[in-house]
């Protein structure tokens, strides 16, 4: 029996925004503000327009893995190692250099010199074309990069392009949340009066977006209630015992709490 999907799949073409920012563009690169993101030159729309799908191979990849189990580990246990990101982005050459009315020229001025350091920002978040400015609550990647080698595609009938290999420089925030004028609000929801021995999930939003697995969960009283990285509370205490569950958006340090009392 076929099931009708309850969503429409997001097409890639036209709905990926890329932008480049020089070091110092953000007061907090882990959660830039919309104002900071929209102040780029070239704009995100211009920068995205300058990128060809051909030879596009930039983004976050699977992390290195660490095989270093303890004596207590049973079976094949693997941990997450260093993040891996970067890759190739191919840009159109401008018809005329130093032409501030030409997106390709502005992009070339920004990143055409090898070993340019900065942040690449990617937005893949619903039907938001690159011409749509960044807004509070957008999900973005912020990836610190350094441009390295360039490969020229300057033959044949296609528009001339230069493909830049972007090296990772260590700082990355994956699916972080764009701030508005102030730190984005963290809001925790869920039962505050669980039954003894209950196991249930709290939810957290950041700037109004679902972010339960992205926040850091902690408990004030592990003997009363534990909370997992997925927001799952396990009640261990007896009736009337209390604990405070805290969700922290690490990018800004913003928190929200929920006081629970065992019913």
């Amino acid at each position: 029996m076929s099931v009708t999907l309850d969503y429409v799949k997001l097409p890639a073409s036209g709905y990926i925004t890329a932008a480049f920012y020089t070091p110092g563009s953000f007061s907090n690169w882990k959660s830039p503000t919309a104002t900071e993101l929209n102040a780029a030159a070239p704009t995100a729309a211009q920068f995205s327009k300058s990128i060809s799908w051909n030879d596009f191979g930039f983004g976050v990849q699977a992390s290195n893995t660490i095989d270093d189990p303890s004596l207590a580990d049973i079976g094949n246990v693997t941990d997450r190692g260093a993040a891996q990101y970067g890759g190739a982005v191919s840009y159109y050459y401008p018809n005329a250099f130093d032409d501030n009315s030409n997106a390709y020229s502005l992009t070339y001025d920004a990143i055409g010199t090898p070993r340019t350091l900065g942040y690449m920002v990617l937005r893949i978040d619903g039907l938001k074309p690159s011409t749509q400015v960044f807004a509070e609550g957008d999900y973005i990647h912020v990836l610190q990069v350094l441009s390295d080698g360039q490969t020229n595609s300057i033959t044949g009938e296609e528009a001339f392009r230069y493909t830049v290999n972007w090296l990772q420089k260590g700082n990355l925030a994956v699916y972080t949340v764009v701030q508005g004028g102030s730190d984005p609000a963290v809001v925790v929801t869920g039962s505050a009066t669980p039954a003894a021995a209950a196991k249930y999930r709290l939810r957290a939003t950041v700037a109004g977006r679902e972010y339960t697995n992205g926040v850091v969960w902690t408990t004030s009283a592990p003997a009363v209630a534990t909370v997992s990285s997925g927001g799952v509370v396990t009640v261990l205490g007896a009736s009337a015992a209390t604990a405070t569950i805290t969700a922290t958006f690490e990018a800004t340090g913003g928190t929200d709490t929920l006081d629970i009392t065992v019913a």
Partner: protein
Amino acid sequence: MADTRLYRENVTLALAFPEAFANWEAPTAAELNGALVINITCALNEDGTTFDLGDSDTDDTITFCQAAGSVSPTFYNPEVVYEAERSTLPTATNQANTAFGLLAFPDVEYFAILRVGKDSDVAFAVGDRVSLVRAATDLPVDVAGNGENVRLQQNFLNKGDVNWGFEVAA
């Protein structure tokens, strides 16, 4: 029953928070149908999703009583990758956004669940054949190409526990 084979639309893929099970080696149908087990089958792209058991690590040493060449498997090597479609409406309530919320952030531990043999919208029941693999999320990988839909790939990290092909008990 005639010799009929099983065909598509008879797979269920889900993620369970480890707290869902009192004993992950013998999950009950009630636990598998509980709120801490989340069915995301309809969000997963079948070309990019794998749920396999690779060859085990082996110990090739033998005792004086074993035949030459006897091999003992040691660790199971499950290989679980979920690749979820993205939704055009990122704040809507739908399976794609549910999957995104579960898969987009690193270091969250689950049991990945595979059931073969029934539609994904059929509740778990006694007798179902199910596999569980304890795994943690890595950083997500965006998969995108011109003319394609965007997907989010999660290459799970093994966390040791494997319960492969068990029959759900009461």
